[in-house]
């Protein structure tokens, strides 16, 4: 190709990249290396049963009914569903007894929806098990462990989750270094990553996209919307979560989940890491950064 000069400014000296001067933008090694959480006030709500007085102020403040406080059975039962949580912090501001704190914790993805539900109170009967049988899970790991092609589907999100899914391709997160590719067609994909509450207008398209994926495939539900409908869960125009329509293998909470949360969720789907959240309890080592 011949060079044709359209705008001939004096060619500037090669601009230095916003490299070391901008540590915020430099590549991370996670999940292959340690997790370094970026600075900023913590946003994950944490319920501390020992301080709870059962006022129910948090439940009344919550915009998505993620918290319920029940005293009708005698002892207070507090349930917090991270699958509905928007990480807005209103419950923390509302709690008069300081029982709601916030922590920095991003490795929140789970395989079993029930593991997003925290329950503080007398023991309750065990909840239903996870969705994919272990043998299928093993097959997923064998087939896709080192090379996974995923197709992102927006099932009616607000575009907040799209920002973070797209960020996985930015130099800092660079999804492809992990052997994971975002592909353009479901026919090239091994798995789907679905955002949004599944609007009635997108339901058919989502189902068709799923059917176009060659099996065995799995689905990752992203964000409060993808898990439970999020802020839109009361609307008659939405189905209220991906698992109302498709079987979901991994749930990634957040509104939107950070790129690090998404990396963890994909790594969990591939069976490369252990799930950290169990029955909604944040592991003790994550609480070492003092709650604020």
């Amino acid at each position, binding site marked *: 190709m011949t060079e044709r000069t359209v705008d001939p400014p004096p060619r500037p000296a090669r601009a230095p990249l916003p490299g070391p001067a901008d540590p915020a*933008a430099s590549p991370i090694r996670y999940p292959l290396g340690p997790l370094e959480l970026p600075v900023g006030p913590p946003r994950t709500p944490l319920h501390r049963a020992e301080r709870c007085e059962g006022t129910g102020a948090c439940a009344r403040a919550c915009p998505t009914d993620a918290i319920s406080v029940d005293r009708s059975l005698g002892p207070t039962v507090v349930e917090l569903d991270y699958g509905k949580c928007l990480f807005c912090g209103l419950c923390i501001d509302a709690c008069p007894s300081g029982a709601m704190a916030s922590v920095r914790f991003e490795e929140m993805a789970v395989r079993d929806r029930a593991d997003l539900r925290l329950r503080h109170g007398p023991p309750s009967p065990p909840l239903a098990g996870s969705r994919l049988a272990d043998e299928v899970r093993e097959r997923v790991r064998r087939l896709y462990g080192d090379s996974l092609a995923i197709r992102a589907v927006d099932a009616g999100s*607000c575009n907040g989750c799209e920002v973070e899914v797209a960020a996985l391709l930015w130099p*800092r997160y660079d999804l492809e270094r992990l052997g994971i590719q975002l592909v353009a067609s479901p026919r090239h994909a091994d798995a789907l990553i679905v955002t949004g509450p599944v609007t009635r207008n*997108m339901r058919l398209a989502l189902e068709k996209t799923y059917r176009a994926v060659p099996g065995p495939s799995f689905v990752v539900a992203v964000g409060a919307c993808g898990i439970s409908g999020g802020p839109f869960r009361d*609307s*008659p125009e939405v189905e209220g979560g991906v698992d109302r329509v498709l079987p979901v293998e991994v749930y990634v909470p957040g509104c939107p989940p950070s790129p690090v949360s998404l990396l963890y969720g994909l790594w969990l789907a591939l069976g490369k890491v252990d799930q950290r959240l169990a029955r909604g309890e944040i592991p003790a080592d994550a609480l070492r950064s003092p709650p604020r």
Partner: protein
Amino acid sequence: MTPPAEEGEEPPLEPAPAVALAGDFPSRPTPAEERRSLGALGLDPVWDPSEDLWRVDVPPEGWVAAAVGASDALQHPLSTLFGEAPREAPGTIRVHALFLGIRPSGGVHLRCALDPPRPTLPTLSTTLPYVAPFERELTEMFGVDVSGLADRRPLLLHEHHPNPPLRPGPASAPDGRRVEYSFRPVEGEGIYEVPVGPVHAGVIEPGHFRFQVVGEKILNLEARLGYTHKGTERLFEGKPSDLGSIWAESVSGDMSLAGAAAYAYAVERALDVAVPPGDEVVRGLLLETERIAFLLGDVAGIALDVGYAAGAARANRLREAAYQTLRAATGSRLGRGTIGVGGLRRPIRGNLDPDLATTYARWREAIGRLRDEWLGKSSVVDRLEGTGEISRWVAELMHFVGPVARASGLRIDLRHDRPYGAYVGTEVRVPRGLTGDVRARLVVKVEEIVESCRLAEEFLRRLPADRSPLEPRRPPSPGERRSGLGWVESPRGEFLVHVTIGPDARLERVHVRDPSFLNWPAIEFAVRGAILPDFPLCNKSLNLSYSGYDR
């Protein structure tokens, strides 16, 4: 290529202006003059301080004359049109049309009460063509019969929709009727159709595009949206007025802060809530940071679509840094849950890095260097010049807003024209293109990033030294029915929120007008006559919000 702008001088963006534009900011009538010209139309306006508009009630017969007259008298087009089922008059429908003047204050708010049994309203779309989508929405949501409206297809509700969901009165059961959607036919020898979507190839929102093509040339494009319709406006209803920002920031999630701010201003105006000046400055800082991150995404997207991966990677590094700055300040990378009614939800001044100003200065330089470097690459510029042109005439006729309008030569920006919060008394330089093509949009967006960095630096200087945390404040209860209008220049342009708050301090009706509701037709104009492979580039340069349109 023009040299970089000197400090304090309007940045010239385009080489050799094709048209010389006289009078960048046309003189607009003052509110007093507006009142007189409205009076000359036989209208009797009442000043509404919570909206900064003249409010006029008109009967359906006088609707067209009043609306067209107001639009002419104010020299400003209709900003939004929406229906309401007023609580104080059950069973009726009231239609609102807002005309925001391009001045710090003034404009008109027309209201029209419709007859309950057969609500009919004459169309405005024959005189003001861009009003048609508003009227289609009014028809499908409220069952208003807009007489004379040529396009009666549903806008947001798809085939399975029941009866108009917002029509007052007893809810009628879905009648199971399917309204088939037909695209505008374009026929002739050699013309074929290319359907695209709703699921697209990239990580973007869903929508359907129907192209009619000859060879590679696009004769016509029709976008069909509504796929992300979530009934958001209905979700506000019945919520306490300080909680509504949760939904306002989920209208267009990539502009969460702008949505939350527009909502907050609407409620604050309705309820007369004073915001501490320090909080306003922080709001301004956050809004500019959001704009920087957002526009860097557009820059990266354009780079990617012309195959300039190095430019995209560098823009995305800066973008990541901007999101991390927001996270460091607020705890959320998109700044969610931060802007509340009455100020900030939680104190964040203590989180700000004392060196933040140098960060913005560094970004300003980095983006300037990036611009110079890639506008020096002929293979890049070649793809941008003349692609996706939107003439100034079309931009004005269709009332486009934001960077799209500015790239076509219109100098409109609410931060300058109708300043709010921290922008009152702040000089905002509004860049403007001339050619209306992808290159003009790119250059305008780059200049806006530079200007946003400068504004952020200025806001940091104005931050009160006092870093004591502020008490979160709750808005007072209204005690009577109040309404208010909030406006914010979001990264995509004019973002409007209109609220009605009942005597119990709960929201009765919230209307959100995302800038993309006005701008979506731009894509249809931009690709007409272009080749099919240029569509992604045009699309990226316009960056329209699907969720903001559909809500």
